[in-house]
């Protein structure tokens, strides 16, 4: 689902941005919008519906050794809930593995997640409480893949600046409670929202209780069917200036409003049928 969201409309970006909701701080009074208001606009952006696409994850370790995962992804909406389905195409040892997620909009309600393991011929329900674990070995974790509760974060608009010639808001997001930091795996984040389209194009995240940062950088942003989609994003884990690991996420052939992407698709039945 994570991936679905990402390509549906730079969902990752949205997700990250959504993680940062904010209160009212004196420093923000000089700006037209508060951090929270900006994040609400990010959240309200059209993310598209009934999407399908393909994703490539390139995992690069500190020695430069690469591992590549290729996935087919589908995304959709049911009322205010976000549904996603994805299948691994490669490498061969995870081929046909499927992952289905119901990401509920309702505050406090855990996601529903099912994993189909072809080796077991069995679908397993997955506990979705902790989201700090690595998603399939990448530099993203599960909290990066699901929509956060805006009310769980304080957002502070730090300043207006530019990234690659585009005006952006720089916002700091801090979880209000320690439980959320533990659960998401991040103690705080600084994100950069483009002012012309409310897309998050960069973020720095502080890994909870570790001297590590994760850098999310959108390298390619495209408008597809009227919806902004990050088609290439780099996520780098660093300690200080030293790179520990890096993930390159690429999305291809993204299409929205597909007739064959309907409610019947986001089911265990379809999950078990494979790509």
């Amino acid at each position, binding site marked *: 689902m994570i991936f679905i969201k990402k390509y549906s409309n730079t969902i990752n970006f949205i997700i990250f941005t959504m993680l940062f909701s904010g209160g009212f701080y004196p420093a923000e009074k000089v700006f037209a919008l508060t951090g929270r208001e900006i994040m609400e606009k990010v959240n309200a952006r059209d993310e598209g519906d009934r999407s399908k696409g393909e994703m490539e994850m390139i995992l690069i370790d500190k020695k430069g050794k690469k591992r590549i995962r290729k996935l087919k992804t589908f995304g959709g909406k049911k009322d205010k809930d976000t549904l996603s389905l994805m299948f*691994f195409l490669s490498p*061969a040892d995870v081929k046909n593995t499927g992952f289905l997620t119901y990401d509920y909009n309702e505050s406090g309600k*855990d996601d529903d997640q099912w994993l189909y393991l072809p080796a077991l011929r069995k679908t397993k329900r997955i506990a979705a409480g902790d989201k*700090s674990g690595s998603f*399939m070995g990448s530099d993203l974790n599960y909290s990066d893949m699901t929509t956060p509760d805006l009310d769980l974060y304080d957002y502070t608009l730090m300043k207006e600046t530019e990234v690659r010639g585009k005006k952006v808001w720089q916002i700091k997001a801090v979880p209000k409670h*320690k439980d959320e930091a533990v659960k998401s795996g991040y103690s705080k984040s600084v994100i950069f929202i483009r002012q012309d389209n409310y897309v998050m194009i960069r973020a*720095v995240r502080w890994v*909870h209780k570790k001297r590590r*940062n994760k850098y999310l950088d959108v390298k390619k942003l495209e408008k597809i069917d009227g919806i902004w989609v990050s088609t290439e994003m780099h996520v780098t884990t660093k300690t200080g200036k030293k790179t520990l690991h890096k993930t390159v996420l690429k999305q*291809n052939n993204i299409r929205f409003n597909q007739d064959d992407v309907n409610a019947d698709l986001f089911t265990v039945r379809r999950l078990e049928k494979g790509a």
Partner: protein
Amino acid sequence: MSRRGKNNQTGSTLHFCSNKALMLQSFFSSIRSFILVTTLLIWVPVIGAPDIVLAQETSDFAGMEEALSGFDEEDSGIEDALSGFDEEKNIKHTEETKALFEKEDWSSFYGYTGISLSYSFVREPPEDNSNSDWSGLTKTRPFFSLTWDTKLGNNWKSRISAKAFYDFAYGLKERDTFTSEVLNELEKEAELREVYLEGSPFGSLDIRLGSQIVAWGTADSLRVVDVLNPTDNREYGMTDLEDVRIPLPMTRLDYYFGDFKLQAVAIHQIKFNKSAPPGSDYNSTTTEIKEVIPESKAENTEYGLALSGTFSGWDASFHWAQFFDDEAYLLIADMTFVPGIGFVPTLEYRHSRLTMSGIALSITSGNYIWKAEAANFWGMEFNNVKEKKFTRTEILFGTEYSGWSDTSLSIESGVRHLNDFDHRLEAEPDYQLEDRIATTLNFMQDYYNQTLHLQLFGMMIGEWGEDGGLNRASLEYDVMDAFSVNGGVMIYQPGDSLYFQSLNDNDRIFFEARYSF
């Protein structure tokens, strides 16, 4: 880590540790060794790795408030962190990616190959060279598996898969000292596994015809309602989970309505669990006992029905099956008088025709998944009480905790109760207990962006492990995409069970290199 696609779970499906030949039970506590070994296996790596569970949890709770309250002061450090973005050029993969994804074949071949080794470090070589040598290298087995999937239009597809191995370990020793059963069963094998055609002739109906696997239930290590496919028990606790279920020719219909699925299965061939052949390291008996296998004809067809519902936060299913018990009982078929010895029984393995009805449930709650299975089995037959058939009740509870990053800890415990127990069943050849309890503990943790995977698995039989158990620790490393190496150790706990006592000398280290394509 629990989201990993490949099998990194128990390596074996454990069916309440039943054994066809040896069922004598008594009390000898192996609980201490089980707990000690399993606890040690789990907590030593945890304690020793500061990045892992304990460090995260203890430090998280101890210093969280300080960390959160210190953010304002850290703003000066934010600027340093913000300068850490790479300005490198895009990695050149886009064209390659597009080319791969745009090509969607109607036919695909995939599989794996590799070599599996095991070394028995307890057994001594036989003093007499005419006896089989199960010491040292007990497996040198290259293996190969190939699957061919085809898409036949929009609604139909097929699968043909096969697997083969050849074990050089016997040729490296005195091959002639091994029994023909051992060589036939363990030296080489080539078999078709799943061969089926499946499709959706109508909107809500799926049909699958052919040799296939149907896995029921929610438990991972123990099985209650998962009764349809027999299992490969030739090397107890050592078989990959991927290979442990044996496909059977079936007709399977799945009908979907709302949040429910109704499944009907007819099994057309009678096959039972694969057991270790006589004379092998996992079956020390020397004489082969005849097994009466019901003929695969219409009146012996096995049936299964399942109604399952998938809901927000929980899943539930009801199961019914009529089948031949994969576990045999021993029947004294004849008594022969041998002068000077007396009466000698002629034994046969028989399989009861059982009817099972049961339920399975899984519920999520935060970082936990709670699992339960319960079933009743009617029609159990035994040698010592022929005047009636018995009923057995099985209940299982389990939980899986995934609140630590890249970590999963699960425990399952089940009891098998023989109703209206008759104490004559405790005698040979039945060796039945009124209650048999099994408990498993499984710990898995991933490191280095899921390139290194640790698994610690423990199982004990009996309320306190008095009837034996096993402990298995393994470490798998993904050398590169689709190529991994896996090594570990298996230690059996004998307890008072003759079966586990017979396994006690089978402690071994193992290694596998696997390339998937």
